[in-house]
């Protein structure tokens, strides 16, 4: 009886696949892009400077971030989990999970589940601005790299579905550096500003200032 009732409720849940497919069609306009921007890293145990970065993307989901002449420490796989990974699933279930407001925009909450059990993506919750056909926020859970929140702010490239600012947030409290990696054995009294930020969510922010879309570039950049 309960099983039947549950099945009936599930069947009644609004199928959001058409909306996701419309979104996919919009993102499909972009075959590749190169973007320049500024990377800010705010992770409790990492002290890093604000730096300029170049980002490369090619369909279906090849993504590379290169820091200008420098070194980047970024959550593994986190930044490369683009919306294309989610929307390009092919075989997926998209369910409506209500309405909400993100940054003043009315959005539909859509839960996307991959049909393939082997997919790295476990669940994606997309906050889709139906009117402008843009993802304003996403919560993505992967098998390999845990859960990420992605906040997206759009500007002049919104017609391509490309954000001006992307903010990745993730939990960092489980990370702890073992002592002695580079023969450092500081005493405990040496607390730092970074240590005071413990238990805070990690945050990586990229503010893009320019995109070069569909102009093509050498694939070697991904090697």
């Amino acid at each position, binding site marked *: 009886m309960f099983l039947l009732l549950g099945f009936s409720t599930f069947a009644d849940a609004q199928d959001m696949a058409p909306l996701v497919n419309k979104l996919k069609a919009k993102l499909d306009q972009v075959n590749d892009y190169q973007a320049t921007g500024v990377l800010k890293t705010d992770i409790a145990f*990492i*002290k890093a*400077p*604000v730096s300029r970065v170049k980002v490369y993307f090619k369909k279906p989901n090849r993504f590379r971030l290169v820091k200008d002449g420098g*070194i*980047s*420490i970024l959550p593994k796989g986190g930044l490369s989990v683009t919306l294309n990974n989610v929307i390009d699933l092919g075989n997926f279930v998209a369910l409506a999970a209500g309405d909400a407001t993100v940054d003043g925009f009315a959005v539909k909450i859509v839960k996307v589940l991959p049909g393939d059990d082997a997919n790295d993506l476990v669940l994606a919750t997309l906050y889709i601005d139906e009117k402008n056909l843009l993802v304003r926020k996403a919560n993505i859970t992967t098998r390999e790299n845990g859960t990420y929140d992605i906040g997206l702010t759009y500007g002049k490239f919104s017609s391509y579905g490309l954000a001006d600012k992307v903010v990745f947030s993730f939990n960092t409290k489980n990370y702890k550096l073992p002592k002695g990696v580079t023969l450092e*054995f*500081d005493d405990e009294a040496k607390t*730092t500003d970074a240590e005071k930020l413990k238990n805070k969510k990690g945050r990586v922010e990229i503010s893009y200032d320019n995109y070069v879309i569909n102009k093509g570039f050498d694939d070697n950049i991904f090697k």
Partner: protein
Amino acid sequence: MWKLLQIELYKIFKRPRTYIAFGTIASLIMIVQFGLKLDGKEYVDFMLSTIPGFELGGNVLNGYLVCYITLMMLLINVPLLVTIISADMISGEANIGTLRFLLAKPYSRAQLIIAKFLATVIYTFLLLVWLALFALLLNMLLFGVSDMVIFKSSYIVVIKSNDVFWRYLGAFGFAFIAMTTVAAVGFLLSIFAENSIGPIVGTMSIIVFFTVISTLNIPLYSAIKPYLFVTHMNNWKEFFDEKVDLNNSTISGTIQNPQRIINSVLVLLGHTVGLLAVAVFIFKRKDVLS
């Protein structure tokens, strides 16, 4: 005085043993360079394995990081190389019987001691310049230059490449002050001996003894730690930590704890001046028989 200093420098650099230190530093650095050039990826992978879930992009194992790794390994051994010369300055003369002849010259004992100490300081300076040439400049040439990533005990610091070089100048300057203090210990002990073995072993024993005390986290010893020169010798590393702003982004050109460096420099200089003053005081009253 200048003439006296020239003579002392001539004596130092005439001895073959002086060049052992330069050769040792060059060969040790080249061994580190060779290992990291061939197997550096393994080392970097090991560092990265400590932060699963994160990935590093760019030339991590660049000249700046290799120099840091080299200094972490080498600066523990440099005191011995400094002591080989400083502990021989007076005792060596006593051993070969030239100390009395030296005192017959028209210079005061204080002048003689200060000239000998200055010659030791110049030797120490040249040793560190040599170290900088091999550990910094050669590594920059061999491994290239990029941002510098340092894994501290509980956090990671990324320093922009254009913000690193001056930190090394500071670090080598600091190391020079620290090694001068070590030289002063060896120099003082050399007054009491008639061969250099005793002062060399004595100086190294003092360094080892106080290093053990300074690394023990026992409250009884914590009170004296700030006054031990060995506690401060490794604070060159403070140059490689930056302040962060409210967004946890590093502020270029800053040092996390500049006061710690200033305190350490004052303690080390205090020790050097104190040890030299004691050396002059004792030597002026010493009955020189050899």
